C-alpha cells in the first residue's frame, strides 16, 4: 500500500487536517494519512525577514521517508520564503516526493479582512492539490479554472477551482497507471 502523508509542521488544527485528508483522497484516489514527524523550524528561520526558508524545510520533510510513503505534504502556519522571492504559498519537487504548503497568507486576517473559515479551507485544499500536482510531474496549466493554474496572489487562488482540467487529469491517471499496482 502506498500513501500520501500529510505532516503538520507547527500547530495546525486537527479538523483542518482531517478535512484535507478526505479531500486529497477524493482527488488523487490514493490512501492518505496524517503523520507526525519531528521537524525543527529553528535552523530555517531567518530573523531579518521573519520568515522560514521553504527549501530547507522541504529537505527535512523528505529526509528518511517510510517505504510506503509515496508523496509527503508538509502543512504549516509559518510564512515561507526562498532567498530570491519575497514569499511563497508553497513549494514542491517536480516529479519528486515532497511538497510543502503554508497557510500563513491564505487567511483573510493577513490582508486585514475578517476570517472566513470556509474560504481558508478551500484555499488550503487548492494549494495542497496544486503542490502535490507538481510532485506528479504536472507543470502550470493555462486553463484558468484548473487547480494547476499559477497563483501569485490570493485572489487568483479563489478564482480557480479545486479540480484538474481534463488534460491534467489525464496526466495524473497516466502517472497512477504507471506507478501504482494496488
Amino acid at each position: 500500500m502506498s500513501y500520501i502523508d500529510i505532516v503538520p509542521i507547527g500547530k495546525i488544527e486537527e479538523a483542518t487536517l482531517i478535512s484535507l485528508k478526505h479531500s486529497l483522497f477524493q482527488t488523487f484516489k490514493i490512501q492518505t494519512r496524517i503523520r507526525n514527524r519531528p521537524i525543527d523550524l529553528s535552523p530555517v528561520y531567518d530573523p531579518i525577514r521573519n520568515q522560514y526558508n521553504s527549501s530547507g524545510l522541504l529537505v527535512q520533510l523528505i529526509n528518511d521517508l517510510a517505504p510506503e510513503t509515496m508523496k509527503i505534504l508538509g502543512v504549516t502556519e509559518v510564512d515561507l520564503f526562498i532567498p530570491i522571492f519575497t514569499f511563497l504559498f508553497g513549494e514542491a519537487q517536480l516529479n519528486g516526493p515532497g511538497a510543502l504548503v503554508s497557510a500563513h497568507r491564505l487567511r483573510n486576517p493577513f490582508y486585514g479582512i475578517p476570517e472566513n473559515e470556509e474560504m481558508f479551507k478551500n484555499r488550503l485544499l487548492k494549494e495542497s492539490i496544486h503542490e502535490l500536482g507538481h510532485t506528479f510531474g504536472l507543470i502550470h496549466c493555462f486553463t484558468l479554472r484548473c487547480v494547476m493554474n499559477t497563483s501569485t496572489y490570493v485572489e487568483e487562488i479563489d478564482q480557480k477551482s479545486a479540480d484538474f482540467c481534463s488534460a491534467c487529469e489525464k496526466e495524473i491517471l497516466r502517472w497512477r497507471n504507471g506507478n501504482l499496482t494496488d
Partner: protein
Amino acid sequence: MDQQKVSILIVDDEFSVRDSLYNWFKVEGYRVDTAENGTEALKKLQEGPWDIALLDIKMPGMDGIELQKHIKRIDKTLVIIFITAFATVDTAVEAMKDGAFDYISKPVDPDKLSVLIRNAVNHRRLVAENIQLKQKVEELSLQDEIVGESPQVKKIQELIEVVAQTDATVLIRGESGTGKELVAQAIHAKSNRRYFPIISINCGSLAEGLLESELFGHERGAFTGAQYKRKGKLEMANGGTIFFDEIGNISAKMQMDLLRVIETKQFTPLGSNKIINVDFRVIAATNTDLEKEVAEKNFREDFYYRLNVFSIQIPPLRERTADIPLLAYYFLGKYAKSMNKKVTDISSEAMKILAQYEWPGNIRELRNTVERALVVVGKKDRIEPEDLNLHTLSKQDSTEIESLEDLEKAHIQRILERNNGNISKSAEMLKIDRVTLYNKIKKYSLQR
C-alpha cells in the same frame, strides 16, 4: 509566442538564486537553463537562440553590465532583465538606457516576476513581428511592378532609383493610364519613408470644398454634415509620402493653400485653431500642360516651380510598343492567378492585334482588355482574337457600336477631341459636371 517554446537563461553567481528561478520557470512551462558567470552565459548564448536573459548585476569577473554589451553583439533582439539588489538599482537603471528591457529587485515579488516575464514575452513577440513585417515591406519594395524592357522604361526605372534616395518633390507627367501612380508608389517603396504610408488623393475627382476637408481634415461641427472629427490625408501621410494625382485640376485657392503646407509643413484642420506639424514627401502627377496653364495664369508659377523639382515623363504605350507583349503576359499571369484560371498563353493572332492597336487609354486600357479577355475566354487555355473586344473600341464611330456604354464612350471621346482635352469646356458641352466627366474618362480609359 507559445509559452512552451519561450526560452529563459538565468545568469547568477549564487546557486540558490539560479536553483530557485530554474524551478520557478520550469513549472511555469518555460525552457530554462542557468549559467553561473558571464563566460558560461556567452557560451550558451552562442550555442542556440534564447528569448529572455535574466542577469545578475554583481558577479565576480564579468559583471552583468559588461555581459549585456557582449550579448547585444551576439543577439540584439534578446530581452535582457536585470536582477538587482537594492544597492545596485541605480546601476540597473543605467543598464536600461543601454537597452535592457527592465530590472527587478531582490527579493523578487513572485507576482511582479510573473507579470514582468509575460510583458517580456509579449515584447519579444512584437519585436519578432516587427522584423517580419519590415522584411515583408522590403520584399514588396523589391517587386518591380513597372514592367518593360524598352529604353524608355529602363530610363524611368533609373530615375526612380535616383530620386527615391532623396526627399525631393517629384512631378510625374504622362497621359491618362500610363502608370503615374505606379511610379509614385515605386519611388515611395524604394525610399527611406517606405515603412510609413503613401497616401493618394485624386485632386480632379473632388469638388473644391470636399478636397479641402479630405486634405486638411476637420473638427466635429466644422461644417454642415461634419458629425465627427476626421483626420485629413495630409496628417495621415505624416512620415510617409503624399501623392497628388491630377494636380493640374485644383483651384487657385487650393494651389495657394497647398503651397503654404508644402513650404511650412504645417496646417490647421477645418474648424480648428490647432496647428498640426507634418513631415511628408510630395509626389504629384498630371497630364495637363502645366507650362501652358502657367502662361495662361491658370496655375500659380510659384506652385509649379515648387512641384517641378524633379520631373519624370512617362511615354504613352504607343511609343513603346516593344513592351506590349511583356505587359500583356504580366497582366495575364496576374489576373489568371487571382481569377484561378488556367490560361497561360496569348495566341500569335491575338498578340498581333494587341501590338497594332493604338492604346489611347495606355496601360490601364491594356490591363482592362486582358482582364476582360480572361473573363470571356471560357475553358480555353489561351486568349484568342475573339476574346479581345478591341475591334469595336478602335472603330468607335462605326456602325459596330452596340451598347449604350459604347455610344457614350465614343461621344465623350469625340467631345474631348473637339475641345483639345479641355475638361471644363467638354463638361459644359456634355452638360455634366467636371467630376462626372473625370470619372467617365477613367471608366472608359479615354484619351484627353
